[in-house]
């Protein structure tokens, strides 16, 4: 089977709608097919990977820890829109330090998150075979 480039586009905040957790579950399930997977976080989607989430007050499961498992699933291209961060008064330092271990480099830990401009993200999206929007 030829490897295809899949991008999962995340546009909504973690809680309040089911989109974020559904996207994460699909990503983890689809990882079994060993395709070339990347994730994009734009608009309120950037809130999905903000550090220090606390769901005590809304009585929902805090699934933010699960993003740390993505590296184990060989999902290590997480693009974040620089404009979306800035519009919300956030910087890369507000995001979880998501990393993966590079098998080809003696398991060195490397960052998975890349903050990119919307123009660059548009270009990356145009290179995908499949783009799924959540």
């Amino acid at each position, binding site marked *: 089977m030829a490897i295809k480039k899949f991008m999962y586009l995340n546009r909504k905040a973690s809680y309040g709608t089911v989109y974020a957790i559904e996207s994460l579950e699909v990503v983890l399930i689809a990882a079994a097919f060993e395709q070339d997977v990347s994730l994009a976080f734009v608009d309120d989607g950037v809130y999905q990977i903000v550090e220090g989430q606390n769901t005590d007050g809304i009585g929902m499961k805090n699934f933010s*820890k*699960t993003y740390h*498992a993505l590296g184990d*699933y060989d999902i290590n291209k997480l693009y974040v829109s620089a404009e979306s961060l800035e519009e919300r008064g956030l910087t890369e330092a507000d995001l979880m330090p998501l990393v993966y271990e590079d098998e080809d480099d003696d398991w060195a830990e490397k960052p998975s998150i890349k903050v990119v401009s919307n123009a660059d993200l548009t270009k990356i999206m145009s290179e995908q075979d499949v783009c799924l929007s959540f």
Partner: protein
Amino acid sequence: MADILGAEVDEEGFLVNLSDWTKEIADSMAKDDDIELSEEHWDVINFLRDYFEEYQIAPAVRVLTKAIGKKFGKEKGNSKYLYSLFPYGPGKQGCRFAGLPKPTGCI
């Protein structure tokens, strides 16, 4: 609803309330599957429980295999070894003994 040592389980034998889990429940589930839990089984069960605690999900078999090999030695990081411990699948059977839900993406 079925139960194991008083703890409620679903139709596939997975614990309904993860907090009900005890080592005795794991032993009892294994016994029902004709398995005597060895130290090697417990290495995997404890690993699964730690992984779940850290990431809130049960790892896929591929991820589990890689991680076990890294932690316990290369000779154990393969599905043949893990299936020798858990003949019904390290993900499905191992997670059931560990008191975790079925792994995401596990059929």
